[in-house]
């Protein structure tokens, strides 16, 4: 029994149609579809952008783990983006022949396009330091911004955040901090004076690890989707969404942990034994913190409390990609701009062709791809919604009307979050939105 097949509607539907503002979208979800309409162009756009997203993501997850596990509490981490060879070559657990649960048919090593880009950048071969200072590199700052969104919003579900306040965690962190600064009386003295500050840094590093482990999974998922699309395996947007749903379930049980390597010894700050799972402690908090909430970008909203532009209730934050106005793409201080710039380097040719035919052709690719990215993230969110429904509620072709009503209530609650004017759900329903 698959969780998302379209039900056979040979008899009259068991429950009356929805009266929600987004009834059309809800009915589509109930039929096994996505929030994004099922058109060939939508499919092409989202697969193309998934592939363009996965290449820098390949770097993000590796560097996030590098920072969480190796750079750790370095007080002057000027070279934290200069990933070590070991981590650049760290095999992805879900790709390559060595993988126990192989998602991507390709290599477990870094994607060749990524390596080529790290070599040349947009310009040409230069010493790495020059590439770094000139920002002609993968914009790791975006990954850190996502991490900080998760870190700041804290309790977005799962047990991760509560554990960070527990005594066990504090004991683990204390051991690691003392080991890291062994022989450094200055830092140990500072630690004795300000233990909470160091602890907070370790918590942040735990979120680095969390996000790194999350994206380690997503990169091969997106690569595999691109490969399947290339060979014609997806018949439409729902197929792509189903692949994501299955992927989410398959990896749901992956452990989330934080191991630090100091002088060759492994310190388990968050051991695997704590039972933290990829689904509950990484994916769902990530979606909530980064897709829905994030934080207002400086320069676009006044942070002045008297101006009342930023909601005082954190749950009301609506600055994630699902609500984003793509106009500021290209402006400074907007972290997603960094991601758009990264994705620009790895667009597949068929996607570039689409962009050449609309709006400003070559000149505004950043905005066009930003909007494509928004569509694709609505698709990912739909997959998460369908996966949650599959895990916590009933199959779409259930015969019990109470069950279907429970499904309906669940979908409507999810759609309620898009009632606010900034939501782009209505915009993505048409192809004109470019």
């Amino acid at each position, binding site marked *: 029994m698959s969780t998302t097949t379209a039900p056979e509607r040979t008899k009259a539907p068991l429950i009356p149609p929805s009266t929600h503002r987004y009834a059309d979208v809800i009915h589509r979800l109930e039929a096994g579809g996505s929030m994004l309409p099922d058109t060939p162009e939508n499919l092409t756009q989202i697969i193309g952008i998934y592939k363009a997203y996965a290449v820098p993501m390949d770097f993000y997850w590796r560097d996030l783990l590098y920072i969480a596990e190796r750079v750790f509490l370095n007080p002057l981490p000027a070279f934290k983006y200069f990933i070590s060879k070991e981590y650049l070559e760290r095999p992805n657990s879900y790709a390559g022949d060595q993988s126990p649960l192989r998602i991507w048919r390709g290599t477990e090593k870094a994607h060749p396009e990524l390596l080529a880009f790290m070599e040349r950048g947009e310009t040409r071969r230069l010493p790495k330091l020059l590439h770094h200072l000139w920002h002609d590199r993968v914009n790791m700052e975006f990954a850190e911004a996502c991490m900080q969104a998760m870190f700041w919003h804290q309790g977005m579900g799962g047990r991760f955040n509560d554990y960070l306040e527990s005594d066990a965690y504090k004991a683990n962190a204390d051991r690691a901090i003392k080991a890291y600064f062994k022989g450094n009386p200055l830092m140990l003295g500072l630690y004795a004076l300000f233990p909470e500050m160091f602890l907070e840094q370790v918590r942040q590093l735990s979120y680095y690890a969390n996000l790194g482990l999350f994206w380690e999974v997503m990169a091969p998922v997106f690569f595999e989707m691109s490969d399947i699309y290339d060979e014609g395996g997806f018949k439409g947007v729902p197929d792509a969404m189903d692949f994501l749903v299955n992927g989410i379930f398959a990896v749901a049980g992956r452990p989330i942990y934080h191991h630090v390597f100091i002088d060759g010894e492994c310190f388990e700050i968050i051991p695997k034994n704590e039972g933290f799972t990829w689904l509950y402690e990484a994916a769902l908090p990530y979606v909530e913190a980064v897709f829905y909430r994030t934080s207002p970008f400086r320069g676009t909203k006044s942070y002045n409390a008297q101006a009342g532009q930023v909601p005082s209730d954190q749950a009301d934050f609506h600055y994630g990609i699902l609500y984003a*106005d*793509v*106009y500021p*793409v*290209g402006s400074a201080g907007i972290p997603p701009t960094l991601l758009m710039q990264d994705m620009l380097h790895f667009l597949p040719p068929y996607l570039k062709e689409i962009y050449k035919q609309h*709006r*400003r052709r070559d*000149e*505004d690719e*950043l*905005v066009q791809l930003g909007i494509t990215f928004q569509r694709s993230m609505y698709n990912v969110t739909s997959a998460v919604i369908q996966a949650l429904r599959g895990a916590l509620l009933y199959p779409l072709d259930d015969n019990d009307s109470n069950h279907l009503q429970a499904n309906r209530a669940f979908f409507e609650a999810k759609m309620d979050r898009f009632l606010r004017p900034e939501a782009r759900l209505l915009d993505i329903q048409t192809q004109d939105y470019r």
Partner: protein
Amino acid sequence: MTLLLLLFLPVVVACGLPLLPAESPWVRRAALVAALGQLALGVVAWRHPPADLSLSWLPQLGLRLDLGLDGLSLPLVLLGALITAMVVLATPLAQSRPRLFYALMLGTNVGLMGSFLARNALLFVLAYELILIPTTLLVAIWGGERRAGAAIRFLTYNAVSGLTLLAAVLAFGWLNPGGVDFSFGDLAHHNLTLQQQHWLLALVLVAFGIKLPVVPLHGWQPLTYSQAPTPVAMLLGGVVSKLGAYGLLRFGIQFLPDAWSDWSSWIAAIGAVSAIYGALNAIAQLEMRRLVAYSSLGHMGFLLLALAAATPLSLQGVMAQILAHGLIIALLFCLVGLVDTKTGTTEIPELSGLLNAQRGLPFTMGLMLLALMAAAGVPGQAGFVAELLVFQGSWVAYPIPTLVCLLSSGFTAVYAVRLFNRVGFGRLDNAKANWASTNWGERVPALVLTALVLVGGIWPTFLTGLSEDATAPLALRSSAAVTVIAMAPPTTTSELIA
């Protein structure tokens, strides 16, 4: 010969335009060649100053074809030719009825050149009036929604201006003992009494006050400038209004100096009022062309102040302001026209975020920033040089009006910043941002004008070099209070007190 060519080149080309097929690209090219040819002739005239030309035309009326170039008219001739060339380039390629359009443009140019080159007052009046018809037709046929009203109002006011000027000139001849032959040389050496000069000056002030314009004779200007098509507005604001200043220099200061000195405090006051009025109104505007029109009105107030002060420095400031403001206003209208062509509107509330590098008009807005800064008198650009000369030169004569004008200059910054803030910065509405970006052909006039504005800012002689020698003898009061202190440091306290 150069002078005749200057005057008749556009005539010949304009007459030749109807012979070309309407869709031919040569129509536009011919007009451009005429303008650039004039510019080249102007440069030739600068290097090899031609002798005055005097041809008999209608001796019964005293109308002679007296043409000449001196330090006052040469910069204006160059400005006129340059702006005409830029105007041709700023005209859209898809201009409707191109032959008529370019012919009328060249016709306006002929009138302007005639006015600047004339050394005979009747010839001047003839050329002055000649400008009216093509300009009115240009506004009436290709203007904005309210073009009919704008054209009529423009025609009415400026016809009155022409008639008043004609009356003044004729009165010259009637009042002067022994009559005049209307040549400038004669008019400069008349024997009118102060009372008679007052009468004439009143007429002259009304005539050129309408042209500049100044408050309260400005009623035609905001409407006409905002309804005129972009190229026409560039020409009107850039050159035609300068004709008013030129006229006041000639007919007021040069020919009626005694009356001018008598009334100059009033004239300065009017200038100050005009400046403040223009600036304050510009702040209130919600439409870009009207804003630029009122800005122009304000800057003409500075001109009038400098003319009133009539110190050598302020008269240099007059010529500098004529050139600087001519370039800046033409640039502003050109850029506003670009915005209009691309986005379809010039209403400020409807525009926002045009600086967006991806989907906005970053080039146009970048140049607009420079143009607005120039208009506000930011150092580094021609506007600053001109305003500095004007204020420094007028301060010794009329400190209070100068202070008022300085205040108005401060207000310029207000509306410049507000305009740019609203239109350039802010959020670009992605749903509406469907326009194409500007191509290089459309950018050329704006680029050339901006370059010249910058050159004028860092090399002030560019603005005053040609006219310094001509304006100095016209001064009616010296900058004495300024120059003495500047020349030699006092060595005894008695010299300080003296």
